């Protein structure tokens, strides 16, 4: 998941992966080895040119691909650098990018990528296979302190390297025009891993020359080049004329203005001063905008792989009692909460969002039934309810949602005190054993790094996450389910795709029997763009990029 450590004025706007079809991305790995990079044919012709303005509230942190891991810099890094694999814009469909072609061994343990010839970094040097090896090793190297190291855990030599016992990843070898990866175990998600930002290719000599400043003066081989960065004010990106795929991107440049209140950004957008309000439409403005005649041209409303939930700490009394947890699940009026967020979400009943492979649309979950909830509490020996604490981040609308939950809980006699804190403090409380009985995940909610159900389990519901400083804030650990999860993840045989999917799906619905979460809703992402901006909605709520700067264009 991406850290959304920032003050989000609206619903959690997080980098999302939109999965339009249920076709498993893994399948692509075994498609004919030469997949031409290309685009979903847009409805209208893209005219090249145009300079656009994008706004964000928060500072852009580093643009170093080995480090950057938040939803603002994610899409910029995507466009500054290229990777072996990428996605078709607006879809979760994997395509080779820097790789001209690739092969996978039948046992799923060896991947060979042949690189495009003549791809150049923006400093003029050609990209060679050694750069790929260097870049991934850099992301894994503990000295980098990169948050993405764990994704590469399947590559041979990972453990030695991350423990500091080796100088590099023994599993990556290169020759004149190709890179070979040897895995220590089958990883059904490995091609996705090579498409995430941490696998971006960087030029070693520049990284070493710039040292710590590389994140502020990035050099890559992507569609755009960072021309200028006025810290705290704006970043200017210009089109990389030498990008190895001709005709990409469309716009000549985009300027990211920082420090703009989302509300102000939308007001400016309506006046035509801004083209994309990066932080989306704040709730206050949402209804008005959707009702206005301009709405059709300005509002992009897309689904994302998001679930908002309340964690129930299984190590804190009385939440350690499954009946209590079930009772709480039945107490929440999710329809009302959805109304409070102006209908920008749909009620949820399981951890996985509807568009995620493995989502069980027949699963009913716990229906809203306060009477039954009270009964369950009585059975649990708590006829008069109990007192507890509900944590939430302190940015609108999270405290409001927490209050709605609080009122629902009060209806069955559960008195929840709200602690609305800065995000960092909530995360710290969640990662401390016995500290936070309940946490509303809003603003920090789980969004998959890539469209695979496995990504929704490990850190947030698996035993490995239930440690101090971990992200499994329910402190939930079911050994049986854990075993089934591991089994499902090693099913890398393409023939078993459906089976794997079903296995994962069952894991998530079975988790609900233990009720460590109250899944509340799946939120849609609302983006505001100026009317001159063209293209389908997908490229503004791109499942892999948030905003796909490569694909957007000016009408």
């Amino acid at each position: 998941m991406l850290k959304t450590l920032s003050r989000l004025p609206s619903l959690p706007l997080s980098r999302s992966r939109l999965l339009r079809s249920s076709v498993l991305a893994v399948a692509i790995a075994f498609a004919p080895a030469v997949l031409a990079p290309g685009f979903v044919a847009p409805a209208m012709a893209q005219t090249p040119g145009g300079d656009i303005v994008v706004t964000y509230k928060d500072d852009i942190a580093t643009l170093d691909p080995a480090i950057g891991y938040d939803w603002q810099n994610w899409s910029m890094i995507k466009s500054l650098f290229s990777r072996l694999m990428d996605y078709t814009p607006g879809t979760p469909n994997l395509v080779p990018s820097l790789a001209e072609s690739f092969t996978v061994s039948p046992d799923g343990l060896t991947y060979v990528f042949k690189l495009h010839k003549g791809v150049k970094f923006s400093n003029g040097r050609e990209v060679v296979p050694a750069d790929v090896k260097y870049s991934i090793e850099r992301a894994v190297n503990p000295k980098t302190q990169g948050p993405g190291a764990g994704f590469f855990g399947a590559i041979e030599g990972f453990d030695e390297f991350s423990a500091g016992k080796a100088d590099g990843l023994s599993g990556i070898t290169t020759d004149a025009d190709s890179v070979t990866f040897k895995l220590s175990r089958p990883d059904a998600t490995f091609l996705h891993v090579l498409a995430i930002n941490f696998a971006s290719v960087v030029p070693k000599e520049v990284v070493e020359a710039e040292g710590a400043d590389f994140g502020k003066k990035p050099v890559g081989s992507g569609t755009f080049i960072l021309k200028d960065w006025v810290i705290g004010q704006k970043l200017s990106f210009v089109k990389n004329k030498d990008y190895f795929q001709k005709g990409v991107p469309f716009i000549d440049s985009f300027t990211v203005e920082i420090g703009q209140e989302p509300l102000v950004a939308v007001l400016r957008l309506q006046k035509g001063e801004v083209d994309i309000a990066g932080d989306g439409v704040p709730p206050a403005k949402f209804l008005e905008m959707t009702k206005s005649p301009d709405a059709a041209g300005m509002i992009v409303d897309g689904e994302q792989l998001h679930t908002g939930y309340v964690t129930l700490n299984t190590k804190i009394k009385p939440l350690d009692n499954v009946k209590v947890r079930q009772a709480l699940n039945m107490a929440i009026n999710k329809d009302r909460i959805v109304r409070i967020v102006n209908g920008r979400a749909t009620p949820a009943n399981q951890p996985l969002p509807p568009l995620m492979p493995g989502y069980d649309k027949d699963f009913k979950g716990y229906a809203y039934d306060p009477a039954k909830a009270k009964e369950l509490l009585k059975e649990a020996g708590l006829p008069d309810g109990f007192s507890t604490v509900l944590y939430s981040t302190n940015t609108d609308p999270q405290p409001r949602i927490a209050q709605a939950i609080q009122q629902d809980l009060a209806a069955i006699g559960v008195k929840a005190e709200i602690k609305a804190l800065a995000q960092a403090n909530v995360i710290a409380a969640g990662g401390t054993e016995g500290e936070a009985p309940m946490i509303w995940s809003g603003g920090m909610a789980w969004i998959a790094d890539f469209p695979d159900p496995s990504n929704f389990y490990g850190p947030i519901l698996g035993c490995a996450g239930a440690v101090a400083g971990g992200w499994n804030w329910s402190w939930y650990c079911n050994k049986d389910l854990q075993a089934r999860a591991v089994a499902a993840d090693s099913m890398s045989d393409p023939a078993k795709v459906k089976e794997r999917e079903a296995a994962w799906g069952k894991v998530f619905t079975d988790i609900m029997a233990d009720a460590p979460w109250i899944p509340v809703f799946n939120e849609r992402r609302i983006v505001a763009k100026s009317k001159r901006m063209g293209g389908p909605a997908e490229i503004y709520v791109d499942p892999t990029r948030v905003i796909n700067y490569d694909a957007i264009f000016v009408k």
Partner: protein
Amino acid sequence: MLALLAKRLVQSALILLGVAAITFVLLYALPADPAVLLAGRSATAQTVANIRHQLGLDQPLLVQFWHYLGNLLQGDLGRSFTQKTDVAPLILARLPATLTLMAAGIAMELVIGVSLGILAALRRGGLVDRLVMSLSFVGVSTPQFLVALLLLYVFAATLGWFPMSGYGTAAHIVLPAATLGILGAGWYARIVRSSMIDVLNQDYVRTARAKGLSRRRIVLRHALPNAILPAIAMIGIDIGQFMSGVVVVEAVYGWPGIGQLAWQAIQQVDIPIIMGVTLVSAAAIVIGNLVADLTAPLIDPRIRAG
């Protein structure tokens, strides 16, 4: 004078040291572990421990503080946990914006406050006086964010006279500076009024009148330089108030100053940035007081003599 300056400088340095120590202790006690936040969700306990070690967070508080001070003396404010860059350039990049805003705000305060104060003092007890005094009360009683939102809505969003947000041109600074200035002007008006009334009752003003000077000359040449002294002392204190005010104002107007930086850093428990911003604002306050202390003698020769 030089001795005074040296003394005040050392005093200021000690105050900053105190501020650094207090902030350090406070932040150390914050219930959030930067290492965990940095490591991200897919991190193992080993990674977290590694990061903690690399940041020196596993060392005793005193050692950490000692290192921090050592670096500080070399102008090194440490590295931001989240942004992975040196803090000093981050703050330096944003400081001009905040300083510009503060300067504009203070200028507005002074111009509005001093002229209204003089006006009220001259029309003491009259309608103008009462009006000015009432307005000054409304000024100091109004929540800053309310004014910020109101000005934004009226003058930028509705009337479109000024840009809504951003930085760079003179037009951009008007509304944020007005938000800071209009409210603060109330204090200045009150202070200047009261000291002006005081000064106008002084013997030397009577002397000036006995010399047959014009009222204008008496007010501007004789009374004002004396009456302005308390207002100058106020500027030093004011900078402290402004440092708080800019957080709100910068947030509303998207002003790229250190207020926004501070707010983000607090949300992210980015201790080096919080430390840096605290020290810089404390330094601004201290320098402001210092400048006020040193400006007063320029106007008042009596202080010059010590």
